[in-house]
């Protein structure tokens, strides 16, 4: 079950906590992984941990349209085979209350968190449609469903991912390509490490499963959606949040 042997997977934001875990688990299942991100050194660290086989690095800055548009073909070139699995994981936050949010805070987050996943999906779908197979998996967030003060930009982008994915899923379903979303809740990463203890306590009180998420919890959901076994699942959002929001 869930073998990804010989499949080519492109993971954006692969140097982050969740991205690295996704790369690791896809690789463990036999996939050839292309790691993308802005920090080449950090990508090399992730690649080194995976060993020397079936790993490639293609640095890219997804706030640059041309780089986003070219990433899929660059990944295919470096790996020497067509793309089977696209994981839109890269994202950034510019948190602040709406009244203080600058135009650029809004634009940057929408650009990287929503527009670049579309650009990548558009590029990937051309080949996937033709080959009659493929998987597009985008990482959203629970705040795309619930909202979160200080994250109007991020929540809008993450909700947008869901609407986009449902539309793409309907467009390409007949071609054997599935398009799905994974929406994590609060996951232990560098981003959440800095939360004050009192905030963590309060967060944990809202999670029926009684702990923060691990990057591996999210990665396992990606592995499932990437697998042949998930071939009849499309347009859905798999919430991985310890039960914090049952939607």
């Amino acid at each position, binding site marked *: 079950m869930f073998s990804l042997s010989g499949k080519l997977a492109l993971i954006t934001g692969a140097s982050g906590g969740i991205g690295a875990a996704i790369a690791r688990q896809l690789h463990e299942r036999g996939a050839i992984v292309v790691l993308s991100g802005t920090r080449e050194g950090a990508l090399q660290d992730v690649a080194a941990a995976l060993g020397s086989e079936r790993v490639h690095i293609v640095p890219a800055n997804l706030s640059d349209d041309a780089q986003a548009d070219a990433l899929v073909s660059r990944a295919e070139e470096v790996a020497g085979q067509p793309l089977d699995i696209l994981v839109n994981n890269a994202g950034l936050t510019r948190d602040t209350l709406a009244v203080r949010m600058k135009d650029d805070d809004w634009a940057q987050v929408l650009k990287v968190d929503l527009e670049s996943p579309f650009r990548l999906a558009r590029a990937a779908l*051309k080949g996937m*449609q*033709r080959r009659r197979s493929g998987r597009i998996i985008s990482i959203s967030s629970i705040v795309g469903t619930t909202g979160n003060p200080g994250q109007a930009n991020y929540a809008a982008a993450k909700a947008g991912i869901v609407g986009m994915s449902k539309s793409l899923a309907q*467009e*390409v379903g*007949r*071609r054997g390509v599935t398009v799905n979303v994974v929406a994590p809740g609060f996951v232990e990463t560098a981003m959440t490490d800095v939360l004050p203890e009192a905030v963590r306590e309060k967060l944990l009180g809202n999670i029926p499963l009684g702990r923060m998420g691990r990057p591996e919890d999210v990665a396992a959901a990606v592995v499932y959606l990437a697998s042949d076994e998930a071939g009849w699942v499309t347009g859905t959002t798999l919430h991985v949040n310890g039960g914090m929001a049952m939607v």
Partner: protein
Amino acid sequence: MSNEIADKVKKIVVEHLGVDADQVKPDASFIDDLGADSLDTVELVMAFEEAFSVEIPEDAAEKIATVNDAIEYITKQKAA
């Protein structure tokens, strides 16, 4: 020139829709006669764009319903 275009268009249609070459008559409609769905027609237009190095804008693409429509449009673009 235009025969060359017609042959190439027909070849692309045969490849993409998996139909026999003799079904690809000039007035054959992609959807009604050749079994294409809406995504097939988009793929065909993309294949034409690639093969002939032309850009077919959305409003023009919508009007390309038959084999002849495609040949005429591309011939006009290449002549321009």
